[in-house]
């Protein structure tokens, strides 16, 4: 169904008397945005303020339109028919005296709401037209033609607190003070070293000898080295005693500690 078909048919079939009315109707239904839109178009033909519209008249106009559409074998969408049925109901309500037993809104209330809906739709149409009639961006006024983009730059900021700084400095400067905690290999004479040394010498220690004489050469000058060597030698001596290879004695507190080979087993 096209516009042309519809209008040809209408022109052919309508009587002169109907023509004026038909002019408002000679539009294919697809042109309407639903029954409310059609009603609004019909209402305009009454050429009165929408507030003073005769809803009864409007219902009759609409029903006539639907009749005509049927005659013309125009297939109407379901919602146009629903509206037609409702308007027929409204028409009867408006024409007949109110039934006191019937509940629900009166014909007048329903008519008033329909009028309100039409007026509101009309108002929105006007508002839309006003809106589109405004100056528009890109048509009447313009944005910057050559926008300069804002560069996104990532910047790394390194931070340090005064505390970090001072702690770092303290760390560096106090390294030496903690020497005892550090195994300083060249000043340490280990027990293993002392034991090796003494095992080789013990065979010759037939008589009591101060363990100081077992210290390696050159370890008695530096006090740190002397202490380390003495301790290692003493520990090694105890180990030899435990193994049953030597005997230790000390005549009194702080007196020299003496060591000799243990002869018992050989005896």
């Amino acid at each position, binding site marked *: 169904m096209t516009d042309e078909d519809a209008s040809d048919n209408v022109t052919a079939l309508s009587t002169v008397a109907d023509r004026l009315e038909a002019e408002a109707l000679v539009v294919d239904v697809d042109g309407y*945005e*639903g*029954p*409310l*839109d059609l*009603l609004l178009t019909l209402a305009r033909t009454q050429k009165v303020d929408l507030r003073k519209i005769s809803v009864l008249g409007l219902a009759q106009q609409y029903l006539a339109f639907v009749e005509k559409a049927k005659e013309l074998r125009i297939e109407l*969408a*379901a*919602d146009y028919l*629903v*509206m037609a049925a*409702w308007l027929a*109901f409204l028409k009867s309500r408006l024409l007949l005296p109110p039934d006191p037993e019937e509940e*629900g*809104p009166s014909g007048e*209330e*329903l008519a008033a*709401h*329909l009028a*309100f*809906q039409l*007026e*509101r*739709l009309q*108002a*929105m*149409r*006007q*508002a*839309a037209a*006003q*809106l*589109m009639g*405004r*100056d*528009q*961006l*890109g*048509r*009447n*006024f*313009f*944005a*910057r*033609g050559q*926008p*300069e*983009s*804002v560069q996104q730059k990532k910047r790394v*900021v390194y931070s340090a607190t005064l505390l970090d700084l001072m702690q770092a400095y303290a760390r560096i400067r106090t390294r030496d003070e903690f020497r005892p905690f550090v195994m300083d290999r060249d000043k340490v004479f280990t027990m293993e070293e002392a034991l090796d040394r003494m095992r080789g010498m013990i065979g010759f220690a037939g008589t009591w000898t101060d363990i100081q004489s077992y210290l390696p050469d050159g370890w008695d000058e530096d006090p740190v080295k002397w202490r380390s060597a003495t301790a290692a030698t003493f520990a090694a001596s105890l180990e030899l005693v435990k193994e049953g290879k030597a005997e230790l004695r000390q005549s009194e507190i702080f007196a020299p500690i003496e060591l000799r080979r243990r002869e018992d087993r050989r005896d």
Partner: protein
Amino acid sequence: MTEDDEQPQAEAADETPGESLFEAPPMGEQERMVEAMLFAASEPVTSRELEARMPHGCDAAEALVHLRKRYEGRGVHLVRVGEAWAMRTAPDLGFLMTRETVETRKLSRAAIETLAIIAYHQPVTRAEIEEIRGVSVSRGTVDQLLEMEWVRFGRRRMTPGRPVTFVVTESFLDHFGLENARDLPGLAELRAAGLLESRPRPEGAPEASEDEDAEEAVQTGQSELFED
């Protein structure tokens, strides 16, 4: 450089202005900065964004007042768009710009009406739009408006089904040269006439029924879009 370095601190210092290490630049200089930033941008920029890019202690809002005055009557204006600001050519000079005009997509009548209803009735649900227009709103229509970024989702309505609402965007305001949705033409009159109220439909009045678009939309899952 150093001011740059201080920027993150500047925000913190805003709360305690006494601690400010740097003197804010003179207002004339701040005005220049705002001018440059707005000139460079094609989209509206909020005063908050402006201030974030300015040195510590600047007052973008005040600079904007001065700048707006400076551009009064010029070929380019400083306009307010919602919470943001933009430079735009004076509308009376549009005739010179034919060359810059970009053919905007023709909006359908349904789209224009839907847009107007959203603008005037916002926040508005899809059902309310349908009630006003008397037909169902096709998904395509709303999609188009969403895609143009003239319309966005608003808060859900706290009614059964928690329907989503639609509101107009800043870029809608920008496009139509509106400072604010309250500046819509004829808004006060429409409100006074009671035409922006949503009046409940009396029982028995016909509902807007589905049109073809709507049926299609249902098939293609409009519920995803509108109902959750």
